[in-house]
């Protein structure tokens, strides 16, 4: 056996060179002969009936594409099928796409858009959270019954706002007919989601739709389900004009019309016994789906399942509702319901302790989950949990105790906050086993070159590097002997979407198994296939939300230190420390990249990123109004990894991507609480909120 460095030892990212030189082709960098452009006409009304459409006479070579051009079903295939490709006679949110104008010259397209008149009859829009479309409930052990014997009941309600993915590359796609095959190239996370959506919209047979990934300039969930909508619209246009058509969003359209993180309101109630212990929690999670339910039910269930965060609470009663309103649709965003819940539970545990006059850190530590504890949904934490050690490490690295003591006693507007959290890896519940059924293939050519055939998308997280490294390492061949092209549904099987922190653990696990079999295969030119099977001990009852919601969990601790300007309420982030258990890092440098980027988004969710709507109209229009962190906003970040190999992950790897986002907001909110000595129940904690709290808030 040759000497092999540890799998985690960093290697250069395989696509770094082409990205640095500008040669990597993102969707807007691709042009095709005879290509036309498309632009969207959007609803200006939150709720209205379309009474009349006046379309101008079109110059030669231009077309208007609307619902009448849909040969199949006027629905974008997602989990909850209420998403129209184009509205027929009713618009349900500002920014809803009504039609496309297609043609060669962008200026002429704009003129046509301006000449189109849509006459609406205004209908009453609904922005209150009253129309519950999905309601879930589960209990643990005695549910809420211990409340009857409680010595004291503590309750708080927590609120979180919108968050915009703000990938730097806007949404975009190109469609064309290749013979009679509808082909779509796009900035997408899930090639097969797009393919299946287009199949349904066209009503064509499977072989006639092909989806190819272009380089993706960031996604963060924003390119999970949303590109399916664009793809369906574009496919209609391509059929009409019979030429390649390109659709690229402008930043403003992307901000007002694409899916965001669900705003949430989470009501938490604790039954406390005479010694100050938590007997039971009662939790209600409400999320705003906007006008389209789409994936919201799955977002809600992930949030609800995370109700106790990194803690074990004996009795639970958890309910949740997805509300439909006439505002912009919300959808997938890194963390998928968990960031909202993690903020609520982390703050609540702190607030319970303070309300009881107990030292918050010690109080929280006593509830941190241990191996073999029951999860919120009465599954079992089967694998070792290293949280106690990880918390000690985080405290040591950040000098938490010393700083906390100092900041609590001095009124210098400095603070340090620490969050504990976990993230379930892979699809929630039985999703992997029953819906996704991931399939992967490895093909070795006679030359010995091995192709990784999976549908996983590299959107910056580095999966192409990690997968090639994994296979090269297992087969003990140089990495350039292993090929992993950008996925094309005509060439790769459906290994599932690139979401839910599943790619390395689930898809990578299958790839590793296939590589192992390939290594033992005497024949050189051969193809190996692996399909996902749920480990038999993992059982899930979907209807009752009981059992093991995830096959494995990644764990984390974040510490964030801040200084608050007492005059303006401005927060500066001074330092950030993280400790993670992701099983085993397949590349420590790439994990650090995820850790830095995820924490930046998580912290910014907590204090910086403000998005609101007024009567359904998003108030932020561009990256000047919607502030994301710049280099000046980010402190030095230190990350430490604890190995804790998971039996079914490749080399023990578990999920990484989302974990790194979910702890940021509560950590910074706690730090700000310490700095201003006020209780925070709402994010983002803006300077205005800080000033208001300092004047009127509670300790």
């Amino acid at each position, binding site marked *: 056996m040759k000497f092999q460095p540890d799998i985690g030892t960093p290697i250069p990212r395989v696509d770094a060179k082409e990205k640095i030189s500008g040669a990597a082709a993102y969707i807007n960098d691709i042009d095709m002969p005879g290509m036309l452009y498309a632009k969207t006409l959007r609803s200006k009304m939150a709720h209205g009936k379309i009474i009349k459409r006046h379309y101008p006479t079109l110059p030669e070579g231009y077309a208007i594409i609307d619902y009448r051009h849909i040969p199949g079903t006027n629905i974008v295939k997602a989990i909850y099928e209420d998403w129209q490709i184009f509205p027929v006679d009713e618009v349900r949110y500002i920014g809803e796409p009504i039609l496309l104008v297609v043609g060669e010259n962008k200026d002429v397209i704009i003129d046509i858009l301006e000449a189109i008149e849509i006459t609406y009859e205004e209908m009453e829009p609904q922005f209150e959270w009253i129309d519950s479309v999905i309601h879930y409930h589960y209990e643990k052990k005695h549910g809420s019954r211990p409340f009857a014997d409680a010595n004291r009941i503590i309750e708080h309600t927590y609120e979180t706002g919108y968050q915009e993915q703000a990938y*730097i590359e806007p949404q975009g796609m190109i469609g064309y007919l290749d013979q009679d095959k509808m082909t779509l190239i796009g900035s997408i996370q899930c090639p097969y989601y797009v393919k299946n959506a287009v199949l349904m919209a066209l009503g064509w047979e499977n072989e006639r739709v092909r989806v190819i990934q272009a380089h993706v300039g960031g996604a963060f969930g924003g390119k999970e389900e949303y590109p399916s909508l664009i793809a369906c619209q574009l496919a209609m246009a391509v059929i009409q004009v019979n030429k390649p058509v390109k659709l690229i969003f402008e*930043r403003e359209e992307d901000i007002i019309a694409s899916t965001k993180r669900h705003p949430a309101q989470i009501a938490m109630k604790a039954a406390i016994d005479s010694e100050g212990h938590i007997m039971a929690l009662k939790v209600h999670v409400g999320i705003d789906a906007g006008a389209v339910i789409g994936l919201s039910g799955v977002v809600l269930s992930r949030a609800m399942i995370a109700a106790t965060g990194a803690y074990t609470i004996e009795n639970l009663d958890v309910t949740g509702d997805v509300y439909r309103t006439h505002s912009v649709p919300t959808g997938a965003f890194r963390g998928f319901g968990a960031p909202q819940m993690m903020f609520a539970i982390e703050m609540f545990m702190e607030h319970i302790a303070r309300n009881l006059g107990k030292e918050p850190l010690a109080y929280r530590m006593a509830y941190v989950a241990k191996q073999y504890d029951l999860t919120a949904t009465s599954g079992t934490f089967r694998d070792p949990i290293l949280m106690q050690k990880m918390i000690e490490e985080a405290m040591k690295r950040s000098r938490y105790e010393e700083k906390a003591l100092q900041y609590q006693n001095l009124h210098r507007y400095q603070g340090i906050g620490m969050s504990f959290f976990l993230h379930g890896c892979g699809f929630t519940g039985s999703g992997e086993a029953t819906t996704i059924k991931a399939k992967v293939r490895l093909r070795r050519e006679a030359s010995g070159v091995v192709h990784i055939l999976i549908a996983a998308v590299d959107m910056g997280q580095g999966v192409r590097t990690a997968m090639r490294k994994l296979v090269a390492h297992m087969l003990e061949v140089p990495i350039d002997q292993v090929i992993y092209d950008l996925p094309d549904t005509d060439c790769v099987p459906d290994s599932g979407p690139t979401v839910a922190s599943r790619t390395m653990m689930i898809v990578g696990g299958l790839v590793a198994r296939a590589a192992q079999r390939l290594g033992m295969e005497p024949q050189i030119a051969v193809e190996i296939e692996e399909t996902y099977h749920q480990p038999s001990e993992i059982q899930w009852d979907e209807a009752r939300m009981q059992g093991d919601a995830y096959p494995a969990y990644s764990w984390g601790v974040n510490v964030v230190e801040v200084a608050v300007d007492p005059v303006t309420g401005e927060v500066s982030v001074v330092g950030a420390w993280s400790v993670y258990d992701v099983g085993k890092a397949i590349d420590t440098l790439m994990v650090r990249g995820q850790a830095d980027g995820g*924490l930046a988004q998580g912290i910014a969710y907590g204090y910086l990123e403000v998005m609101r709507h007024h009567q359904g109209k998003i108030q932020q229009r561009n990256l000047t109004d919607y502030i994301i962190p710049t280099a000046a906003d980010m402190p030095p970040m230190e990350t430490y990894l604890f190995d804790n190999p998971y039996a079914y992950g490749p080399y023990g790897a578990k999920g990484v991507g989302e974990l790194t986002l979910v702890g940021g907001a509560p950590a910074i909110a706690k730090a700000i609480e310490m700095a201003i000595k006020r209780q925070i129940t709402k994010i983002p904690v803006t300077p205005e909120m800080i000033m208001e709290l300092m004047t009127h808030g509670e300790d």
Partner: protein
Amino acid sequence: MAKIEWMLNGTPISSDIDLSMRLLDYLRDHQHLKGPKEGCGEGECGACAVLIDHQIANSCLVPMANVAGHEVVTIEGFAKTKRYQIIAQAFIDCGAVQCGFCTPGMIIATESLLHHQPQPTISEIKVALSGNLCRCTGYNMIIEAITLAAKRGRGEW
């Protein structure tokens, strides 16, 4: 339409062009230089950055009229230099590239900074990057890459 004389990536050119056209569109659509990217079209993200007379500029905000008599260098032109090699290698070694959409602009920002300040401090780097947004990295690894490039490239700037 009017005629302008300028330099693009080291070559003098004269273009008969609509003077209000954005430099970004000219580069991408007329010269097929796709390295500068459009992330916002409003001067906020820096993905479209180029060098104009060694100084970083957002090409989405520059009308062609303003390039007359000036020297424009895109990532494609800069990629032919030794300084580029040093910066690129530092970005690779420090893991400063994720989705890569901001990266050409970040490289241009680095060159613009090091041209004016070959040994920048961390705060000078942060100021130099203030017009370049990155949603993937949280900036730390980019800052490290720039520090490393400055160190390795001592004497090159």
